[in-house]
């Protein structure tokens, strides 16, 4: 089964995300900020990254750029709040494949994941 790296500085969000993804049958790896995400990515080479934007230590956009340097084929979905259109656009330019908007609607998240993975 596909492995998904969930990057979010909020424990709560990570737990919610894990519940949702495990429920859908995915393996889940977690990271609490951009820097951790890069380390985790190198260790476990996940099939997909769910990336929060605003995080301490290293933000999501920078992490996308870094991960793309490590693996140009990395598949990344941005997790954004409303009103972050410009930032999301930047992330997509940096190589993110898609985005989902918080608070998550389970079906939208799953649809986005399936679309990006196939």
């Amino acid at each position, binding site marked *: 089964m596909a492995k998904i790296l969930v990057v979010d500085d909020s424990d709560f969000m990570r737990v919610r995300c894990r519940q949702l993804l495990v429920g859908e049958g995915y393996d889940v790896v977690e990271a609490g900020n951009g820097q951790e995400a890069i380390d985790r990515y190198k260790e476990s080479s996940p099939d997909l990254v769910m990336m929060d934007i605003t995080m301490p230590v290293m933000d999501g956009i920078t992490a996308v750029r870094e991960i793309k340097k490590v693996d140009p084929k990395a598949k990344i979905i941005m997790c*954004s709040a409303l*009103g*972050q*259109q410009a930032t*999301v656009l930047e992330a*997509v330019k940096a190589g993110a494949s*898609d985005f989902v*908007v918080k608070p998550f609607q389970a079906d939208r998240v799953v649809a*986005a994941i399936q*679309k990006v993975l196939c």
Partner: protein
Amino acid sequence: MDNLNISKEDLKLFLEELDEQIEVMEEGFLTLEREGADPEVVSATFRAAHTVKGSSAAIGHQRMTALTHAMENVMDKIRQGELGTSSEVMNPLLKGLDLLRPFKQTLATNSDTDVDISQALQELRDVAERKPQDSASGPKSSGPMDVSESFMQRIHYAQEEGLVALEINVTLAPESIMPSVRAYQVYQAVASIGEILASDPTLNEIEDENVGTELKFWIITASGREAIRSAVAEVTDVTGVSVSPVKVPKDKEEADRAKPGGAAPSDEDTKSGAAAAIENRTVRVDVTVLDSLMNLIGELVIDRTRLGQLSAELSELAGVEDLASEVGRISNHLARITGFLQEEILKARMLPIEKLFKKFPRMVRDLSMKFNKPINFEVNGKDTELDRAVIEMLSDPLMHLLRNAIDHGLESPDERRAAGKTEEGNLTLSAYHSYNQIVVEVSDDGRGIDPQRVIESAVRKGVITPDRAKEITDREAIMLIFSPGFSTAEKVSEVSGRGVGLDVVRKNIDALGGRVDVESDLGRGTTFRIFLPLTLATVRALMVRAGGQTFAIPLNSVVETLRVDKRLIKSMRRQQVVTVRDMVVPIYRLESSIGLTRRRRSWNDTTAGENDHIYAVIVNGDGKTFGLVVDSLVGEQEIVIKSLGRLIGDVRGLAGATILGDGSLALILDIRGLTGAGWSKDTVAEVAG
């Protein structure tokens, strides 16, 4: 004054046509400025200018001809792709349009005018002589989507190499959360398939978040149409993709038609063809014609009732049973038909609110420039139908609310950015049906109304007492902005001021039998909602009898009806009052309140069946509550308002009359009028709230 060569009849036709053309141009200019050089809009506006030029020349109106000629020249340059449609280009065109209006006015009133067109002419000429590259600086120049020579050349070469030039039209879901990101994803998808020659919006516009729901690309590619379609459809929120070949035009004329937007001629043609057919099935009717039709139907109703009575009398006679039943059938049929007729005429009085809405985009655009606040103005529900009288009276209140939203509601781009909002403010004007009402909404995503500041200001201006201020809820506080005396000179700016406050907006809406409400979320925006009755021509009313006459009291003024024991009627300062739920309410005899009788009758004179009680209808008008004493209550009924007109002239307190089912006349009370200026203090003494 230009010496005109036109008959009165022809002038009327000329003015009507001029009106239409001005509207076409206004709408067109604004669309072009906002959305770039859509070839269809360009030709429509060009044609309009051309038409006015021709007809004004025909009547010898030289200044109008000169003006429209200059406008036509600029439009032609846009049509040829030599000029863009930035604000710098559109401004002189709009200015020219503004001068056509006074011409229209003076022609209609047959007065002289000293409208000076020389400056406008100069500006139009300056613009027309600009080099194309100068004009490409606007935010939405026609540049990238123009079919320039080199552009066609490239398509030509590509075709020689065995590639195809395709036009891709993509529709995004209107509810798409981040349309510019979706547009970018679509752009990426398209770019991965072929070489993008042009796109609308351009990449820059996408990055500036300047994206609508329609995207258009011209590409050169080796891929098949199906592959492109599925690749683009992959992107979330894409609801439609169509791919069609770009035709290489042979001459200029064809190039115009082949521009994106006109690329699917068959489709477009049928659409406009159908629209034209509908257009031809409508005729203009003067409102007075509708009014007189309404009156004639009233007469019909009376005759129908007479016929009914006649058939009843006939059936009493021996030997004419067949005749009687035949007359009875006819009478019933006539009753049904008149009912339908009445309904249809009421429908004919309804107009789509578009008539009113269409003047606002221009106003918003001008104010947006004046305040330097970029605004995304959206208009919804243009097809919502309202009684034409309501539409006319809605104009000022809406104008006021929109100005207010732009002046006070929306923040400056800097403030918005600091607040994490888009620099472009969002302003929405919508109309829709809700239950038995029409709702018109003005909504902005600006700074919202701060209840605390409203309270402070209301206390300062003496609108409420400091004590009241302590217990007031946020919602009540916000509603204070409608209080008379709240918006004062302090807030009057040139634009939203005009010495008119929101209290006047509320008054106007009240006068329409509607109400206005406001909802505000501090920091997020404000929504004003106007609730209106479906029509002013009919109203639900409480029917009562007083002084031998039937009266209709509109239900929106009625608080309650009471049967009062005469012994409970008290006298306070020579005013008779009753106590209703701890409130002392003055009471008046209905017929004397409108001056039908001067004779003061004692309550014992009442013709009501019960001698120890009276019937009182408690009504509320302009915040004053009082009781009207009537002889009897008849019931509730939907009534059609007829103006009193020459029957008895204008009577204070009477809104009009209606013909009842039996053909008799009922007078409709105007409670607001009863409480109005005409009533001296001792007629309606306001007693304790």
